[in-house]
């Protein structure tokens, strides 16, 4: 690492990256066996597998900094207030349209973020970003294509996609919020200021949503509270109840 930075800030940053992929990967995996068509079932599982793999890398590194914890320790033994994912990824799947819209809105941010992280001053961060960015480029192509197809499909699919966008849009802003942790990351050259990604994001998302014949809601209101853990949605607790159950019920067992 070239510039010294507080381990705590770096730890928080890594949790934000890893918790996003952990929680979204979990949500996407809920589709397995229930998708609209076999080909989509298989594709969604690939996305979830990529996200789980990325989680192992981000949380693995976070655990290393946090006194030698494993990625599993962090995923399965923290309570909701210690999670640092944005609210967008923890909202329930809803219908296939909402799942794919959420995926697209996240992929767009994710791909831009990872692109910047590839030149991180921290080699470990840069290496994870380099691997993840290839996977995410495909996620974005797939989710973007599906959003366009369904937005500009039938009347029903259009209406459902617009509804999904209306529901999810208030969760987009949190991905671009900045705080003290981000300031330290910027100062150390580890990560960009999230606020600076917004312009590129708006251009990318605007282009796809226009092709999809969907309208971005006018309100710029943004829910927040996930990436600093101050106030998650009620949904996260239920997700963790399921995900962490075995580890909690049988402490210390090896699986």
């Amino acid at each position, binding site marked *: 690492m070239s510039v010294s930075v507080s381990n705590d800030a770096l730890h928080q940053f890594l949790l934000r990256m890893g918790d996003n992929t952990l929680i979204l990967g979990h949500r996407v995996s809920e589709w*397995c066996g229930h998708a609209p068509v076999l080909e989509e079932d298989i594709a969604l599982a690939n996305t979830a597998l990529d996200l789980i793999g990325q989680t192992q890398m981000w949380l693995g590194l976070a655990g290393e900094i946090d006194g030698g914890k494993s990625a599993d320790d962090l995923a399965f033994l923290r309570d909701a207030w210690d999670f640092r994912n944005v609210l967008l990824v923890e909202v329930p799947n809803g219908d296939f349209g909402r799942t794919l819209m959420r995926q697209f809105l996240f992929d767009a941010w994710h791909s831009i973020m990872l692109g910047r992280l590839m030149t991180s001053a921290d080699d470990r961060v840069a290496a994870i970003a380099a691997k993840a960015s290839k996977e995410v480029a495909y996620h974005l192509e797939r989710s973007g294509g599906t959003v366009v197809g369904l937005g500009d499909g039938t009347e*029903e699919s259009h209406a459902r996609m617009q509804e999904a966008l209306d529901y999810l849009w208030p969760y987009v802003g949190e991905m671009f919020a900045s705080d003290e942790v981000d300031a330290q990351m910027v100062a150390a050259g580890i990560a960009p200021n999230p606020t600076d990604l917004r312009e590129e994001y708006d251009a990318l998302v605007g282009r796809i949503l226009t092709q999809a014949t969907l309208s971005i809601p006018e309100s710029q209101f943004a829910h927040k509270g996930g990436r600093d853990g101050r106030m998650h949605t009620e949904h996260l607790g239920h997700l963790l109840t399921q995900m962490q159950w075995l580890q909690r019920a049988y402490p210390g067992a090896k699986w």
Partner: protein
Amino acid sequence: MYAQMVKSEASNEDPEKLAEFQARIDADIKIEPKDWMPQAYRKTLIRQIGQHAHSEIVGQLPEGNWITRAPTLERKAILLAKVQDEAGHGLYLYCAAETLGVSRDELTEMLLDGRMKYSSIFNYPTLNWADIGAVGWLVDGAAIMNQVPLQRTSFGPYSRAMIRICKEESFHQRQGYDAIRKMAEGTPEQRKMAQDAMNRFWYPSLMMFGPSDKDSVHSAQSMAWKIKINTNDELRQKFVDQTVPQAEYLGLTIPDPDLKWNEERGHYDFSEPDWSEFFDVIKGNGPCNVDRLAARNKAWDDGKWVRDGLLAHARKKQSGNLAAE
């Protein structure tokens, strides 16, 4: 097996053509979709491959039941990859069936309204994490017994699908054994889970091969056509012989007091499963039949707008392209 009790159809076609067809099969020449084939061969194959495909698809559900509760990130990834493979296998098999002149949607509708069946095993619940190990080890183990010889089946597309499936499937049984081994060697609670899984999955696994068919005319016809390679009893015996030492290694007890090595036969003697339970499950009265079909129906119905939407978009673009030319 994944295709249980498939009835063969009787043929009443030109005897000369039938003889020529049988001669090709006897000479191990593959039958390809455009080749002449008896109607009965075609119908029986559609039924068998369709049932096999349905089993893969419904088979996603009992294991999928644990994806969100997998105890580590690695186990979650392995399980997800495995269940995804089942979807892939269903897809390959549907494609093989489609070469016989039936569409995937038609086959799907027949599954959803109960006209076609899937393997009885998937109507049993997965109740603890060791069940995931047991399903991989015992259920996939039993399936492999049948699938390996089916790579040599007479119908080209089916044989090619089976070759691909067997190649991918080889990790499934091993991951199952690995998962249940961790449990068998773990805490007392984990051992209890492993034994509980063994107790519940042993007999349903034996049922997968179907009732004895050594005197069945359907079976004889299917074997002559090489769309069935071994009798149910042969495969069941092979499965038991292979599995007993694996269970012993784990220190798990197979729930059969009469199980013992028979020196004279060179095989294990074992108890037959309760066939009345099997027929109940086949009739729709297994523990999970209703839930399994409801889940598949829901996925299909809820997905309709998605399938229609994406197709409508593709058609719009295509007509746009044509107009621009």
